[in-house]
């Protein structure tokens, strides 16, 4: 709990770290309507592809220095020594990132969904989907950035983006399911299932990677 507070404080003090990604997300979503005709009826269709891509990009940016500063000033090493399980520390770190970045972005994204499709049903159903998706992305990109810890985030993106691309197919299907009132809950549980595996397995792998970096 103390650690949770510590991480929360650390990220909150660094406004570039949490406010930056949210503002970038808002900017991308605001720039998108400028590129199409104002009264274009098809805007609702392309909106979702832009939304998913924007979320993908922003989650990448958000995790860019999730471990780097701690690694450089030695905090990570101290944590690896002090705490018996580094993976729970990492899981907490990712959770804090999700709380400060993923959650607001899910709400803002749903708001944009309401603004563009004019359907409150869509917006409400979008919130859990976005919440789960942002959490999955944060986990996967943290893994990539842990692998390429001192080598810059381009490498991290290059190696982890192929891993999440199949998820984009599922997200596309979710939108179709909501639009046609089909089996939306099924997809939600599928995403939850993926999340529940990732949330346990990836922090363990990340802690393994970080220990290898510290050697």
């Amino acid at each position, binding site marked *: 709990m103390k650690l949770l507070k510590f991480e929360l404080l650390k990220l909150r003090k660094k406004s570039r770290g949490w406010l930056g990604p949210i503002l970038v997300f808002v900017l991308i979503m605001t720039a998108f309507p400028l590129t199409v005709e104002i009264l274009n009826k098809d805007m609702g269709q392309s909106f979702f592809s832009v939304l998913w891509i924007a979320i993908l990009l922003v989650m990448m940016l958000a995790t860019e220095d999730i471990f780097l500063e701690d690694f450089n000033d030695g905090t990570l090493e101290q944590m690896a020594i002090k705490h018996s399980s580094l993976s729970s520390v990492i899981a907490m770190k990712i959770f804090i990132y999700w709380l400060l970045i993923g959650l607001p972005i899910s709400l803002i994204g749903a708001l944009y969904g309401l603004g563009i499709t004019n359907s409150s049903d869509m917006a409400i159903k979008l919130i859990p989907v976005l919440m789960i998706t942002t959490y999955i992305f944060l986990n996967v990109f943290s*893994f990539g950035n842990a*692998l*390429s810890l001192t*080598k810059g985030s381009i*490498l991290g993106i*290059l*190696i982890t983006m*192929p*891993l999440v*691309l*199949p998820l984009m*197919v599922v997200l596309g299907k979710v939108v179709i399911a909501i639009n046609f009132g089909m089996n939306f809950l099924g997809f939600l549980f599928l995403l939850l299932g993926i999340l529940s595996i990732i949330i346990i397995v990836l922090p363990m*792998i990340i802690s*393994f*990677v970080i220990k*290898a*970096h510290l*050697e």
Partner: protein
Amino acid sequence: MIKKFIHQFASPKTYLFQVDRAYPYIFYISLFIYLGALFWGLFLTSEDFVQGNSYRIIYLHVPASFISQSLYLGMAFASAIFLIWKVKLSAYLVRSIAPIGAVTTFIALVSGAIWGIPTWGTWWAWDARIISTLILFIMYLGLISLHDSFTDNEKADKFLAILVIVGSVNIPIIKMSVEWWSTLHQTASITVTEKPAIDPSMLYPLFGSIIGFTGIVICLVILSSKVQILKREKNKSWVKDYV
């Protein structure tokens, strides 16, 4: 006895000498099989009723796509061996398979595109199978660039192995993409459990081409792994004697 054999074989030195001895046999036999299958497939079988002669690229496309996925599985297997038993040889193998996997995936993509023009009327479609194969290609390139960005080879081996294992979740998705989504790409014609959906006169040369192509790719892996071993063990005295 098996344990002893594995222990001996796992040493890069023994591997190199054994492989050097076996290499010409594997190469010429598989080349013979592949060329034979090509001859059979290109000249002795009849035209396809629907596709005409254009289907004959199957003798390159199917082996290449089969190999591109199998190589990834091989890499995942070798990575697991490396992470669990710390066998150095399997780390070298993972690194040496990656570029060859990239090449075979590229061949599969290009031959698929060429095949697509006469049959589908387009050389590219945003279709689940094609996209997932493209992702596999990018994954291979990402693996290579991850390994090359670290100067410390031991660290690089470890990270590469981890990424290969995590990335192997994509392989079943590529394999099943034609079953799970309705795609332009057809489903597999040959499966283990069912009767093949392809005429025997085309099936046998196809099997021959798959076996021959696999043999040729194994030879490439051998050559590439030799390069890796000689590069990494260049300070050992036996390497100096060997070269």
